């Protein structure tokens, strides 16, 4: 890459035509800005809106409907040229079909745009400022105005505004975690320390943060040319996988379109060979296509998904891509970060050891007291050390906040101790004020301890108290006694052994352990005027009294263990991927249940059996802790073997790049993988994953851009609630589709029987559209509100190859069982209407040609009366209306039976889902409006219907309900039987 890190300041000044003291001139900067463009990452290329829109216009069933519309217009053209009167019906039909496509297209586009907008608003940020030297003056500039050669100043807390070669630093440390995933701050200096520009200390990278200190540097890369920019463009190179629900819907559209086209063509051939006119045959074809295509369904699916997305957003899962809602439900492996996702992302005191005993502290998020035994004198001494030997302080003005939420100035361990002390003892600052500090040695890496000397708050005790904390072994070295139950006892080997055991035990829990000791300085040697000097250390620092140990950890979030066990019962494998140390990682994994209490790794077994690791049968170990270094040397087969053979896996010390390898490994197992991430370099893994989950709080913009979902509270438990919602929506979509497909048969049969038996047309194409896009829409959305039938978190994730959204059973049961029953019911109504007006079924059979002839105006009915063409047409429309009403009434029954697939309706509760009732009332309401309100608009082909015809199909509706209850009863009674296999969808 570049070698700017090797150059001297002078060479740099020359290379970039700048001066470290004066900076660039404004004119020069403007020139470079014009050449290089603004200093910002090019957002991933968005699909042009018009392309998105057109995609909606031709996707799914739209093509079929366009073909239908085209046919309508063609036959209009031909008939119009022939001067036929009915030509305009075809024109209107074509227009209606085109309108349907356009409206549903607009709707789908609008839905998508809406969900994208949520994201867009989310990712918008406050523009970043940078302090720049230009024209020999310091200026605040918007960071995107920076150019190569600018001299910028940064200080602790700033985000680095571009790639910067440092030329002056003072205690500067940067957090490169967004780049490398390493969370330890790294110090920065002006020295060239490494050949690799990524490793050298004198370059600070764009989008990383300066943790402390100050620095000045020359901008060497801006915008997409920065290291981060290059990674981000790498991420956009990783292909997006199709979501499982997209595949399912494609499969479903393919299935239905296949049925529509084959039935259409079959009957086209039949009607041509039955000597129907070619034009008529084409019109039949259109009718069959319209009857077969569930026009409203794709819109319904979109609405259902966005309802779920809204529900999930309430539960802190913000879904960027609607289809990801369901992907989450079919997830079989979750690769989760540790810090912040599984843990609270703050150090907290977890254990104490004093009086030769380990005490556990409360590590939950909202602790207000600590339950351990605080009666011992040793604890009083220990608490004093914890309180006094601590430099961390609360920021002022937070008295009303809970202690755990207050902001602290100080490092992570000191913060943990301060909060712990505040919880247990109350006002720490007051205690410190009463025990005035007279001298202090801050922690440094050579001493590995921190020491301070205080006056005591006991007015009768004039002694000074020396308190010290630090690495336990170093503290112990300096002690000669140990406090047990408030009494100092000599530190013999037995006591030292006890210390070692406790230290090992706490360390084995992955916790950071600190030792505490004190010494009351004798009053005679150290009078209150004694000049303490921390440089010469004119006070004792050995032969102290050891008081106890405290261990700290970033504890798991309290909701996580429960969520992990839910995942377990839901058959979802949780893999922890962290940059942390293996011991800490494993400890957290154990405490949240990712590694269960009883399971062992290969190393554990080796230790237990006391044999070398190589001799252990790897298959016996259920758990595995894989180090990033091991992973680096592994072949793909070895990784696959690990992923396959172990059910509980922790990847520790991994770099974010390795995350991608792990994700790909999981996908090779056929799993649907969810991955969490926050750093910029997580974005390739987030993109590669079936569902990438970015952290809303800790996450970088690049991660949020690459992800399909954003976790607003960074909490693992939210993922699990998301999974639950995702599974529920899959079940409910099944119900919705089953409901919608059913009436297609009742819409199709009229055409088939019309062609074969030559009866007057039972239902019109436009009437069909009124069912598909009118009465049926709200009920099918209502099914999305249905509660789960059983605990959906107790079954395995669906197998994306086997468990289809629309399987054979669903199609067969909807089409050939309920659909046929509906058709029978509707035909009974149809024949009743005709018979009661004078046309008995025997007269209707074969009557089509004469019935439809415009010149026959004395068509004789079964009673000898004669009908004009228009009188017959009006009767035909009454037939349409009756057929329509019958389908609507039976769809009410269909809606009720679709509430459950296995349980009885009475188990599920008829009234629990109120929206279903909204659906039923809307369905009947719309039908009433169409029949009686619009019954006089001839173009719509509805007529006011005699009220009793609404009830003809009711017995059939009841039959549908009873039949389905029987079906479910047998399924529950005889699981695995022939019935279960064929009837459960």
């Amino acid at each position: 890459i570049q070698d700017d890190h090797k150059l001297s300041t002078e060479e740099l000044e020359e290379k970039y035509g700048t001066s470290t003291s004066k900076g660039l001139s404004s004119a020069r900067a403007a020139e470079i800005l014009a050449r290089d463009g603004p200093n910002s990452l090019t957002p991933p290329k968005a699909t042009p809106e018009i392309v998105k829109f057109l995609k909606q216009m031709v996707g799914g069933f739209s093509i079929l409907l366009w073909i239908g519309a085209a046919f309508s217009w063609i036959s209009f053209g031909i008939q119009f040229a022939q001067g036929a009167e009915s030509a305009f019906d075809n024109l209107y039909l074509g227009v209606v079909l085109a309108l349907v496509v356009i409206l549903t297209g607009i709707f789908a586009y609008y839905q998508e745009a809406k969900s994208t907008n949520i994201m867009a608003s989310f990712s918008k940020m406050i523009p970043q400022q940078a302090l720049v030297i230009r024209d020999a003056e310091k200026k605040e500039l918007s960071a995107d105005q920076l150019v190569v050669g600018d001299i910028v100043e940064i200080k602790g807390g700033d985000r680095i505004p571009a790639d910067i070669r440092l030329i002056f630093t003072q205690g500067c440390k940067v957090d490169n975690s967004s780049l490398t995933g390493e969370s330890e701050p790294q110090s920065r200096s002006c020295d060239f320390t490494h050949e690799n520009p990524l490793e050298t200390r004198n370059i600070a990278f764009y989008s990383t943060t300066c943790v402390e200190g100050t620095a000045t540097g020359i901008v060497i890369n801006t915008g997409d040319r920065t290291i981060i920019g290059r990674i981000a463009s790498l991420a956009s190179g990783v292909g997006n996988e199709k979501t499982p629900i997209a595949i399912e819907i494609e499969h479903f559209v393919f299935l239905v379109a296949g049925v529509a086209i084959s039935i259409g063509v079959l009957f086209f051939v039949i009607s041509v060979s039955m000597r129907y006119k070619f034009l008529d045959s084409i019109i039949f074809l259109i009718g069959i296509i319209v009857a077969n295509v569930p026009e409203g369904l794709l819109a319904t699916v979109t609405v259902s998904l966005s309802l779920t997305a809204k529900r999930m957003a309430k539960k802190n899962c913000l879904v960027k891509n609607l289809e990801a809602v369901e992907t989450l439900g079919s997830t079989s492996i979750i690769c989760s970060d540790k810090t912040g996702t599984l843990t609270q992302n703050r150090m907290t005191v977890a254990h104490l050891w004093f009086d030769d005993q380990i005490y556990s502290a409360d590590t939950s998020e909202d602790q207000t007291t600590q339950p351990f035994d605080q009666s011992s004198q040793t604890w009083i001494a220990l608490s004093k050390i914890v309180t006094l030997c601590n430099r961390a302080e609360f920021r002022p003005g937070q008295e009303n906040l809970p202690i755990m939420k207050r902001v602290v100035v100080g490092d992570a361990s000191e913060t943990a101790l301060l909060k712990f002390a505040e919880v247990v003892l109350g006002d720490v600052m007051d205690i410190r004020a009463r025990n005035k500090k007279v001298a202090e040695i801050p922690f440094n890496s050579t001493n590995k301890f921190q020491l301070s000397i205080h006056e005591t708050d006991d007015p009768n005790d004039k002694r000074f108290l020396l308190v010290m904390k630090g690495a336990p072994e170093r503290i112990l070295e300096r002690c000669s006694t140990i406090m047990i139950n408030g009494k100092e006892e000599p530190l013999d080997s037995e006591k030292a052994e006890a210390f070692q055991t406790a230290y090992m035990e706490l360390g084995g829990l992955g916790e950071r352990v600190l030792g505490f000791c004190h010494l009351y300085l004798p009053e005679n040697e150290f009078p209150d005027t004694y000049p303490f000097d921390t440089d010469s250390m004119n006070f004792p620092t050995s032969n102290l009294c050891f008081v106890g140990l405290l261990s700290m950890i970033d504890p798991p979030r309290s909701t996580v263990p429960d969520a992990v066990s839910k995942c377990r019962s839901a058959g979802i494998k949780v893999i922890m991927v962290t940059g942390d140390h293996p011991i800490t990682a494993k400890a957290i994994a154990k405490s949240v249940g990712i590694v269960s209490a009883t399971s062992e790794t290969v190393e554990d077994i080796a230790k237990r059996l006391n044999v070398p690791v190589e001799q252990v049968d790897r298959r016996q170990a259920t758990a595995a802790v894989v180090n990033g270094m091991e992973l680096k040397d592994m072949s793909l087969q070895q990784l696959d073997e690990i992923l396959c053979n172990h059910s509980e896996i922790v990847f520790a010390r991994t770099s974010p790049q390795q995350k991608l390898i792990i994700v790909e490994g999981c996908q090779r197992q056929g799993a649907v993988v969810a991955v969490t991430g926050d750093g910029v370099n997580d974005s390739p893994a987030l993109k590669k994953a079936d569902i990438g989950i970015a952290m809303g709080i800790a996450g970088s913009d690049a991660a949020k851009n690459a992800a399909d979902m954003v976790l607003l509270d960074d909490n693992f438990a939210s993922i699990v609630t998301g999974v639950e919602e995702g599974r529920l929506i899959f079940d409910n979509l099944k119900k919705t589709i089953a409901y919608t497909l059913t009436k297609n048969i009742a819409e199709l049969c009229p055409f088939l029987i019309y062609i074969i038996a030559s009866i007057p047309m039972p239902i019109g194409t436009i009437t069909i559209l009124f069912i598909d896009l009118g009465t049926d829409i709200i009920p099918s959305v209502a099914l999305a509100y249905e509660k789960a039938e059983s605990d959906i978190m107790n079954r395995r994730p669906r197998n994306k190859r086997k468990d289809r959204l629309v399987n054979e059973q669903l199609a067969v049961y909807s089409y050939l069982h309920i659909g046929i029953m509906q058709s029978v019911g509707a035909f009974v109504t149809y024949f009743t209407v005709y018979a009661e007006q004078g046309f008995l079924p025997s007269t209707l059979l074969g009557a089509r040609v004469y019935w439809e002839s415009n010149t026959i105006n004395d068509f004789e009915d079964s009673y000898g009366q004669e009908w004009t063409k228009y009188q017959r047409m009006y009767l035909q429309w009454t037939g349409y209306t009756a057929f329509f009403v019958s389908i609507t009434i039976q769809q009410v029954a269909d809606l009720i039976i679709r509430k459950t697939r296995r349980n009885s309706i009475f188990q599920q509760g008829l009234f629990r889902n109120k929206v279903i009732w909204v659906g039923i009332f809307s369905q009947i309401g719309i039908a009433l409006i169409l029949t009686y309100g619009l019954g006089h608009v001839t173009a719509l082909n509805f007529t006011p219907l005699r009220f009793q015809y609404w009830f003809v199909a009711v017995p059939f509706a009841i039959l549908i309900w009873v039949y389905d209850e029987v079906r479910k009863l047998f399924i529950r009674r005889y699981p695995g039987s022939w019935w279960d296999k064929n009837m459960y969808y």
Partner: protein
Amino acid sequence: GLILLFYLVFYGFLAALFTFTMWVMLQTLSSDIPKYRDRIASPGLMISPKPDTALEFYFNKSDSQSYAEYVSTLRQFLETYDDSKQAQNIDCTPGKVFDQNDEAVKKACRFNLSELGQCSGKEDKTFGYSKGTPCVLVKMNRIIGLKPEGEPYIQCSPKEEGTVQINYFPPGGLIDLMYFPYYGKSLHAHYLQPLVAVQLAINSNSTKEETTIECKILGSPNLKNEDDRDKFLGRIAFKVQMTE
């Protein structure tokens, strides 16, 4: 195997159910009159002969082949009106509605073919087609229970005045009330609906062109003839073109 059996039983059951409900429904119907007659409150008009494709007559009066079909249709149509077929029909009182609600057997009124005069086919076997004065029979659709009020008659007029002279049989195009009401096919088996013959004498100077003729039923307040949507309700239009 099991699946086939299942569907056999299932569809067998559905077919039986369908048949049964249809049977029950049909049992509720009377065989004499339909349950509802509201869809045909007013009758349509129709003509005979009725050309196949559209209501358009094209013929050459000197070419008997060109009108042979019209003639044979008329002949066939009037067969049922033959005196021999009307033996059991009675002579009714003209000008009065013939109510026979209480009668078990409804009698049909005799319609004498002679009333159709020159269009009866008795004197002129070609119904005037050979002479260039073609006959068209106008009839009113049968509707059970319909009792026309007033004195209904058929009136025809060409679209352009003066192109055609029209003769009516019976004179004035009258439809006698005694043929009403109609009691339906099963009760009123021998019923013959009244006919009005229209003889068109097309002016020789306008023979080259098509003439549109519109016939309407007039003189009765309860017979509609001006419905916007139904072009055949109480009226009918047809075209005639005669060549020589």
